[in-house]
């Protein structure tokens, strides 16, 4: 009797364990009918949509509001969450409430923190399935991969039929339009437009003006000046603590160091040294004498410890830690960060600390150009499994390109973050002197403005928000503007191009990075520069250049075609 009982218990325990193992599968089966119901419902609303769409397309010049019967359609948007983390998009922020009121479209946000977004969306896309959001932010650099896998919906017809504001904007901005098109002639994505703001917040060298004054030096204007100033920082103890602990110039890693390369006439910061020469032929500038001259100069800085000898392994946090200790003479950053450099140092008791931005220094090859970020940023797409494509494109049209949408995205909510005065927009104290101590961008983002869906950045908004309290920075941006150019345009590569590029460039990039760093820190002598050039050629750089040439020509043609 007792034995049977024991057996029963064994069986029950084991069975329950097995059941719990397989319960994952069971759940799926149970929810299946619910899904079909949903699909049915979706199909019904879709039918309603198409009807609405037909009436809309007959009058294609304006976007009819509300887009749908209020509350009848819910769009799912998958993107990375607000840069101002405490205000998640999932909590239905103010501007999106307002947009919902205008458009009638409910939004269901599927967001994750920015740092995890890429991996999370990659995984979701790789898993496939039909529960993807309607609108997604495509993982960085993977637009064509997912487009060729059929995951993304071609948008050109939708834009043509349903998005009058977008159409108008694209006809005014042929480059933006051209860059949205894939080599197969379809438009799979829409990107945020950032070129106007690129001029407001450039990445510049910044230097301790108070140290310069102390040593009676001027803000350096050429690479020779820079050498002399950094040397003086090293030798003359400008922070006055009696120790030679100054780091004249520090920077977070080899990439950011390459701003100096641009002073030698190279296109480094965003183009990665591969850019067409004057005749339109794409070359790798790392094979030129200019690059050698740059390496020689930086190697001199490194040897004399004018360049932080730890730069190769630094990241932003480690650099800021050094800056905050009052030992860094000069570094580089987006100018919007400079006020915080100064205020942090002043809080730490260095009352005179004063970083100022510098005009791009003149090198041995004449005036430099500095590359700016743009003209577009971020790829957003409608998924091909979406059941509400027309609604999605109309919603995007409203947010991205309509005057009201632009105002929401730039300035937030009228009466809260801005007011209208004589027909002009004026930011309120909520934005500029936020009672909770938020910075202006944080305050706007807490309402959902400056969002992570496609939008247009406007120069006047950027200036009003960012530089209003700092007229001297604003003045510098005007002076720097003539030096700024856009880097290699983000032309979409076809799948074949991507495959070829990735198989060649893996080894090539490793080699280039490694050798460049070694030349700079002197573990490899610059006498071997010719060997370096030969090896780069042996690794197949010409094939990469040929692909990029084809892309460049394609882009030029697309620009002319518009």
């Amino acid at each position: 009797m007792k034995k049977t009982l024991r057996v029963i218990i064994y069986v029950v325990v084991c069975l329950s364990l097995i059941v719990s193992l397989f319960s994952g599968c069971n759940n799926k089966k149970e929810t299946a009918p619910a899904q079909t119901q949903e699909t049915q419902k979706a199909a019904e609303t879709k039918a309603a949509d198409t009807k609405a769409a037909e009436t809309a397309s007959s009058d294609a010049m304006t976007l009819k509001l509300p887009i749908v019967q209020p509350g009848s359609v819910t769009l799912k948007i998958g993107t990375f969450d607000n840069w101002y983390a405490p205000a998640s998009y999932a909590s239905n922020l103010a501007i999106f409430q307002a947009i919902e009121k205008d458009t009638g479209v409910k939004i269901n946000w599927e967001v994750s923190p920015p740092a995890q977004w890429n991996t999370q969306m990659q995984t979701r896309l790789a898993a496939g399935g039909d529960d993807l959001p309607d609108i997604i932010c495509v993982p960085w650099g993977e637009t064509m991969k997912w487009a060729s896998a059929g995951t993304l919906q071609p948008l050109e017809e939708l834009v043509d039929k349903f998005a009058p504001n977008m159409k108008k904007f694209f006809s005014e901005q042929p480059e933006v339009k051209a860059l949205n098109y894939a080599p197969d002639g379809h438009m799979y994505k829409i990107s945020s437009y950032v070129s106007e703001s690129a001029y407001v917040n450039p990445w510049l060298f910044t230097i301790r003006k108070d140290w310069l004054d102390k040593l009676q030096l001027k803000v350096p204007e050429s690479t020779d000046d820079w050498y002399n100033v950094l040397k003086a920082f090293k030798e003359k103890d400008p922070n006055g603590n009696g120790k030679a602990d100054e780091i004249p110039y520090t920077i977070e890693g080899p990439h950011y160091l390459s701003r100096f390369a641009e002073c030698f006439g190279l296109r480094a910061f965003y183009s990665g040294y591969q850019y067409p020469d004057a005749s339109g032929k794409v070359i790798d500038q790392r094979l030129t004498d200019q690059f050698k001259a740059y390496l020689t100069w930086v190697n001199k800085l490194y040897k004399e410890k004018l360049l932080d000898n730890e730069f190769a392994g630094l990241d932003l946090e480690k650099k800021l830690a050094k800056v905050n200790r009052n030992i860094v003479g000069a570094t580089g950053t987006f100018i919007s960060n400079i006020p915080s450099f100064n205020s942090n140092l002043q809080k730490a008791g260095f009352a005179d600390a004063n970083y100022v931005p510098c005009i791009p220094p003149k090198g041995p090859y004449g005036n430099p150009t500095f590359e700016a970020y743009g003209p577009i940023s971020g790829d957003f797409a409608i998924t091909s499994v979406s059941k509400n494509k027309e609604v999605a494109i109309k919603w995007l049209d409203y947010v991205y390109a309509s005057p009201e949408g632009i105002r929401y995205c730039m300035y937030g909510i009228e009466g809260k973050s801005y007011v209208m005065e004589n027909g002009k927009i004026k930011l309120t104290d909520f934005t500029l002197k936020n009672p909770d101590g938020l910075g202006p961008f944080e305050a706007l983002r807490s309402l959902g403005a400056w969002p992570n869906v496609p939008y247009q950045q406007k120069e006047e908004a950027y200036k009003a928000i960012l530089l209003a309290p700092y007229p001297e920075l604003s003045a510098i941006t005007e002076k720097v503007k003539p030096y700024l150019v856009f880097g290699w345009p983000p032309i979409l590569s076809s799948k074949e191009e991507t495959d070829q590029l990735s198989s060649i460039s893996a080894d090539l990039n490793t080699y280039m990075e490694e050798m460049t760093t070694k030349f700079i820190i002197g573990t490899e002598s610059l006498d071997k520069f010719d060997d370096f050039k030969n090896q780069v050629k042996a690794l197949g750089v010409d094939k990469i250049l040929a692909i990029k040439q084809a892309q460049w020509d394609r882009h030029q043609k697309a620009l002319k075609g518009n």
Partner: protein
Amino acid sequence: MQAGLDAGVGISRAKDKTPLVKLKKNIIRDRALLLIMIPVVAYFIIFCYLPMYGVIIAFKDFIPGKGLTSGEWVGLKHFYMFFNSIYFGRLVRNTVLISVYGLLWGFPIPIMFALMLNELKDGLYKRAIQTISYLPHFISVVVVVGMMYNFLSVQDGIVNVFIEKFGGMSINFFNTPKYFRTMYIASGIWQEFGWSSIIYLAALSSIDPQLYEAAKIDGANRWQKMIHITIPGILPTIIILLILSLGSIMSVGFEKIILMYNPSTYEVSDVISTYTYRRGILGSSYSFGAAVGFFNSVINFTLLLIFNYFSKKVSSISLW
């Protein structure tokens, strides 16, 4: 031991019956054990064996989003791509060197530490030492590398401050290739030796105390007891663990290396897993990544088989 005896009895009893009947009888006799085993077997099938099916993408041009069965068969293309990389030799060399040196230094230390702890009297002191020694195991590797950056910094890292106080030149540890392996392995040992010693301490506690008493009566001193009783007592554990770690000699995790390396130390720090990470994940060439991973596993498995075979021949201790 017990199971072996039982099985023996079972066989002798079932001598004159057919194998099928025998099997049935054994199943009925061990039904409880077999039932208890089912969840474990299911776990391995579902989470370890079924996913192996995914290895097929190493032989295909996998298209993400279309499932594992999508894409063209390309045979060994991705393997050749890896073998033809100019860095293939360097990657294998770096991986093996980091592993071998790590094993050479890292393997004996927990054993010695366990032996030393074993010689201590039980009490607060021993327990405190043991706890302190295994605490670093719980520190995230990110934090460990951050600590190394602080301690070894050129400007005011404590190590360089000492070097300068004694008249030396400060050393740029993180940008000098020759220090990379030492830093990597030493920090690994610091973090893991206490934790790894736990298994040896467990093995030590299972040695029959009568052996020590007998040795004491025979006049053995502490050293002799350690050589002749303690070490032979834990030798099977040592050998099994050695075989297992030899079986992972081609895999060096990428997390810590990625935190520690930069282009100036690639020549010693770039290993197979970091290269695969840069190319397979960052460059999203999943098929290529799968091919390299598969290549790695095959080599690891072969090594494991070889060492297991030798161990069986030489010491009759083996995994199976």
